[in-house]
Structures are given as structure tokens and as C-alpha cells.
């Protein structure tokens, strides 16, 4: 392996350590937020926002998505669309007065 690619990997290792620290801090923040006297909806969006930031760090840096090929990005875009449809189906039923409720 060339010195250039060795240098690149060593640079990546420094990023991994920074991401690890950020994930630890965000985990503590998630726990701290759960003790705040706020409504469920506020707590939900706060917790999901922090979890999304943590998830993005794992996806982007540990799973190298920031430098990944377009084919993988498109697979994930299609998955994300399908996932959101799946998540919002129950919410649609909640607004349906003639449905389950």
C-alpha cells in the first residue's frame, strides 16, 4: 500500500474517533432530554431528531455513505421512500373518522 493511501486511512481513523465522541455526547443528550418537562410530541421530535443525527453520522462516516457510489444512494433513496410510506399509513388511518377509531 502506498504512503498516500496509508495517510488517507490514518486521516479516516481520526474522523472515526471524532464521530465516536460525538455519538457518545449525543447519547447523553438524548437521555438528558428525556428528563425535560415537555409534552410527548415535543419529546418525540427532539428524540427522533437527535437519533437521526446519530444515525446520519453512522451512515455517513462508519458506513462510508458520503463517498459511496450512486447505485447505493439510489437503493437507499428507494428504501427511504418505501419506509416513509410504511410509517405514514398508520397516521392516515388516525385521521379517518370512519376507520378504526
Amino acid at each position, binding site marked *: 500500500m502506498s504512503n498516500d*493511501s496509508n495517510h488517507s486511512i490514518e486521516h479516516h481513523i481520526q474522523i*472515526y474517533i471524532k464521530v*465516536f465522541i460525538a455519538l457518545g455526547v449525543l447519547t447523553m443528550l438524548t437521555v438528558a432530554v428525556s428528563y425535560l418537562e415537555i409534552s410527548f410530541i415535543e419529546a418525540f421530535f427532539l428524540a427522533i431528531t437527535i437519533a437521526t443525527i446519530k444515525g446520519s453520522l*453512522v451512515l455517513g462516516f462508519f*458506513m462510508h455513505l458520503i463517498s459511496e457510489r450512486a447505485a447505493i444512494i439510489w437503493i437507499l433513496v428507494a*428504501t427511504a421512500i*418505501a419506509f416513509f410510506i410504511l410509517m405514514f399509513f398508520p397516521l392516515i388511518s388516525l385521521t379517518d373518522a370512519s376507520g378504526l377509531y
Partner: protein
Amino acid sequence: MSNIPYILEERPDTGLNNAKLGIWIFLASEVMLFGGLFSAYVFLRFAAPEGDFDYWGSKLSIPMATFNTMVLITSSVTMVMSWASLKLQQFDKYKMYLGITILCAAAFLCVKYFEYTGKFHHGIYPSSSTFMGIYFTLTGLHVLHIIGGMIVLIFFWTKQADKMWDENQDLLANRIEIIGLYWHFVDLVWIFLFPILYLL
């Protein structure tokens, strides 16, 4: 018999080798598997009587779950470090980091064992409430993923890895990258399970 193409080299059209494309398609299917259960959680939570999920959720141990979150995050960083060590031709460090990853997985399972048996000891089972039903389903499925990943990690920690390192270093680095992607996904799922089940 001809060799299977694109095991290590990238396909010209996608820019990906077989394993990389395969694992990402598998992970996409996993997103839908857990997504279905997350969707069920939302559905059940909104349909539950007022305060029911809060009451049953308060029976879970936040310190244990926080500890497990830190353990999985640590395992994720050691996993990626083991791959980086292979890229730097440092096989001993690879073994050390992969060993730590396996230990973290074992620690996670131990904590989960104490969590589950603690619940059973107090007469709390999946059938006790809707919350406990979805809690045991989601965390149980996640535990199965941890066990599956751990089996593969142990395989790549044994003499098989030494042999593969001697025969084809690029192939071992590729395989560790692939199992690493799976392992980070397992961590990713827990990142969302933790606040949803334990903190909300």
C-alpha cells in the same frame, strides 16, 4: 468451470463488487423489516389507552439501555478500526479491534439477558401488555441480529482469518467491510430503538 466475476473488482456499470451491492440490498430489506415493526409501534401507541405506554415503559431500565447504547457505539468504532487496520496491513491490530467488537457484542447480550430475566422475575412477559409485546418483539429481533453478526465476527477472528490473510489480503478486507456494514446497521437500529422504547 469459470470463476464468478466481480468478487473483488468493481463492475464497470455500477462501480460496485458483488458483495457490496448484495449487502446494501440486504440492508434495504432489513430497513423494511424493522420499518414495519416501527410502524406497528406507532399504530399501537396511538391506539393505546392514555398513559398505558408510559406506565409499562417506566418498568424498563434506562441506565442499562444507556450502557448498552454506549457498548454498541464502541463496537461500531472498533469494527471500523479493524477494517482500517487491515487496510494499513496491521493484522495484529485487526485481531485486537475485532476481538473488542466481539466482547462488546457479548456484553450487550449479557445486559439484555439480565434485562429480560429481570422482567420475567417480576412476572412481566410479552403477553403482559401491548407495550411489552412490541418491546420484546423489537428488542428480540434486534438481539437475533446481534447473535447472527457475532457468529460471523467470531468466524473472522479465528484461524480462518489468518489463512485468508495469508492467501488473499484484499478478500479479507472486503469481507470485513461487508460484515462491518451489517454491524453498523445493527447499531443504527438500536440508535432508534433506544429513545422510542426506553425514553418516550
